[in-house]
C-alpha cells in the first residue's frame, strides 16, 4: 500500500557545525524508502521522506532539498510525471533528481532523462555506488545553487543600476527646454530620443533678454553614462555664469572658443561637436558658430533653404583655436524655421545597410513644410524610424526647431 504520510527526519551532519545537505526520498515502497533513508542518515544527511508524488512535490517546494531520490514506479504519479511537473515549476525547476528504477534498459533511461531526471540509480546498486551518485548529485546541486545566488545578485545590482540610470535620464531630460512659446513671436518644438537610457546629445535655449536668445545643440561622441555627464557639464557651462563674465559672451564664436579651452579631448578621445546660434528678435538677425557640427538649416517661409555650415574643428581637437561667428546676411521673415539636429537623426541604416542620409532627412522636413513645426519634427523622426525598420535608433537623436511666427 502506498503511504501518503510525509516524515521529516533531521539527522546530525557528518561534519560538526556544518549544516547537513537535505535529501528527499520519494518512494511508495515503505521498506525500500526506509532503507534508503537510513543509509543517507548514516552518511550524515538530513532526510525527508514522502510516500507518493503529491506529498513529495509539496516537500520539494517547501523545504528545497539539495537532492531528490525518486522511485520510477509509483501509483497515481510515477517518477517521470513527477519530474515533468518539477521542470514546469519555475520555483523548483533546477532541483536535482536522481531516479531509481528496477530496470536499467537504455530506452527507459533515455525516457527518464528526456522527461526531466538528472541521473539514474538502479535499485540493485551497491552501497558504494549509491553513495557516489548521491555525492555527485549534491555537487551539481551546490553548483546550481551558487549560480542561482550569483544570478540573483547580478539581477539585484542590475535593478539598482537601472533605477539610477533612469534617475540620471530624468535629470538629463529636465535640462531640455519646454516646447511652446519662447518669446512672443517665437515658437520652439523638438524631439529627443537617446539610443541608450542616457544620451550624449543635448540642446537648449538661453533667453538672454526680451530680444535676444542663444540656442545650441551639442553631440558628445560615444554613448551612455560618460558622454551624458560630459554633455550635462558643457550644458551647465553654456547656461551658467561663466559666460556672463566673459567678454563677448553673447558672441557664438567667442562662446565656442572659450568652451574649446574648457572641454579638451579626454584620454579616451571623446569630444563634442556643437552648433551655437544667436537670434535677435528685434533685428530678426541670425548668427552662428559651429565646432565640427554640420547639422542645421534655415527653412524660409518662401520655400528656400540656407544651410548653417562652416568648416571647423570639433571642440578639443586643437587648443587654442578661434571659432568664427557667421552672420546671415538676410533677416528672418515670419514663418521661417530654424532646425538644429544631431547626425543620429539621419545616419540611420536601413536593414540593407543603406543610410537614410542628410539629403533624405532634409527633403522630409521641407516637404512637410505646410504642417505645424511640431508635426514636421514628429513626422521626420517617424520617417527615420521607418527607414531603420524599428524605433531603437543606433545613435542619439536630437532635433530642435524654432519658428518666427510673427
Amino acid at each position, binding site marked *: 500500500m502506498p503511504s501518503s504520510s510525509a516524515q521529516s527526519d533531521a539527522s546530525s551532519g557528518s561534519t560538526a557545525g556544518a549544516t547537513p545537505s537535505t535529501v528527499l526520498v520519494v518512494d511508495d515502497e515503505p521498506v525500500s524508502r526506509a532503507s534508503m533513508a537510513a543509509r543517507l542518515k548514516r552518511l550524515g544527511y538530513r532526510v525527508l521522506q514522502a510516500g507518493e508524488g503529491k506529498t513529495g512535490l509539496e516537500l520539494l517546494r517547501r523545504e528545497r532539498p539539495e537532492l531528490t531520490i525518486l522511485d520510477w514506479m509509483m501509483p497515481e504519479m510515477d517518477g517521470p510525471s513527477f519530474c515533468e511537473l518539477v521542470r514546469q515549476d519555475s520555483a523548483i525547476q533546477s532541483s536535482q533528481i536522481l531516479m531509481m528504477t528496477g530496470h536499467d534498459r537504455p530506452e527507459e533511461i533515455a525516457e527518464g532523462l528526456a522527461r526531466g531526471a538528472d541521473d539514474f540509480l538502479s535499485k540493485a546498486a551497491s552501497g558504494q555506488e549509491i553513495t557516489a551518485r548521491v555525492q555527485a548529485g549534491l555537487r551539481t546541486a551546490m553548483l546550481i545553487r551558487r549560480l542561482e545566488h550569483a544570478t540573483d545578485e547580478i539581477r539585484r545590482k542590475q535593478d539598482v543600476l537601472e533605477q539610477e540610470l533612469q534617475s540620471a535620464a530624468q535629470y538629463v531630460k529636465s535640462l531640455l527646454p519646454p516646447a511652446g512659446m519662447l518669446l512672443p513671436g517665437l515658437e520652439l518644438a523638438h524631439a529627443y530620443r537617446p539610443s541608450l537610457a542616457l544620451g550624449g546629445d543635448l540642446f537648449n535655449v538661453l533667453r538672454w533678454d526680451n530680444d535676444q536668445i542663444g540656442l545650441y545643440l551639442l553631440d558628445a*561622441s*560615444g*554613448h551612455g553614462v560618460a558622454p551624458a555627464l560630459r554633455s550635462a557639464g558643457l550644458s551647465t557651462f553654456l547656461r551658467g555664469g561663466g559666460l556672463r563674465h566673459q567678454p563677448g559672451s553673447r558672441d557664438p564664436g567667442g562662446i565656442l572658443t572659450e568652451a574649446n579651452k574648457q572641454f579638451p*579631448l*579626454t*584620454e*579616451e*578621445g*571623446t*569630444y563634442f*561637436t556643437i552648433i551655437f546660434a544667436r537670434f535677435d528678435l528685434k533685428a530678426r538677425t541670425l548668427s552662428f558658430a559651429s565646432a*565640427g557640427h*554640420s547639422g542645421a538649416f534655415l527653412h524660409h517661409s518662401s520655400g528656400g533653404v540656407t544651410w548653417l555650415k562652416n*568648416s*571647423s*574643428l*570639433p571642440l*578639443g*581637437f*586643437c587648443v587654442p583655436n578661434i571659432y568664427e561667428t557667421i552672420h546671415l546676411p538676410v533677416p528672418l521673415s515670419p514663418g521661417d524655421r530654424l532646425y538644429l539636429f544631431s*547626425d543620429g537623426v539621419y545616419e540611420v541604416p536601413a536593414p540593407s545597410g543603406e543610410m537614410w542620409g542628410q539629403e533624405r532627412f532634409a527633403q522630409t522636413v521641407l516637404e512637410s513644410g505646410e504642417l505645424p513645426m511640431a508635426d514636421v519634427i514628429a513626422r521626420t523622426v517617424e520617417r527615420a524610424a521607418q527607414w531603420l525598420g524599428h524605433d531603437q535608433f543606433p545613435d542619439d537623436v536630437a532635433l530642435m526647431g524654432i519658428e518666427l511666427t510673427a
Partner: protein
Amino acid sequence: MQTRERPVPNGVILDIVGDLTYANRELFKSAVEAVRQKGYRHLILNMPEVRFVDSSGLGLLAIVSQNFKLTQGRVSLLKPQSYVREIMTLANIPKLIPVYDNEQDAVAAYQMAA
C-alpha cells in the same frame, strides 16, 4: 581590427586592417601605446584596409596626434580610402594630421621636418 608594425627610417608604420570605431578603440589604443613605449617619434597609420571610421575613431586620431605632439613626435595618415578620407575631411582631421598617398612621401616628410 588587426594591426602590424613595420619600422621605417625615424619611425614606424602601423598597418591597420578593420574599422576604426568605438568597438575597436582598446585594440587601437594598445597598438599605439606599444609603439610609443618603443620610443618611435613618427607614427604612420597605414589605412587602405580601413573601411569605416566613426566619431569615436576620429577622436582617437585626434588624441593620438595630440599626445605625439606633446613629446615632439608626429602622426601621419597613409592612403585612406575615399569614404574614410571624406569622413576625416568633414571633421577637419587633415588640418591636424597630414595625409599622404604614398609611403615614401610620408617617411620623407618627417625626415625633412626633423
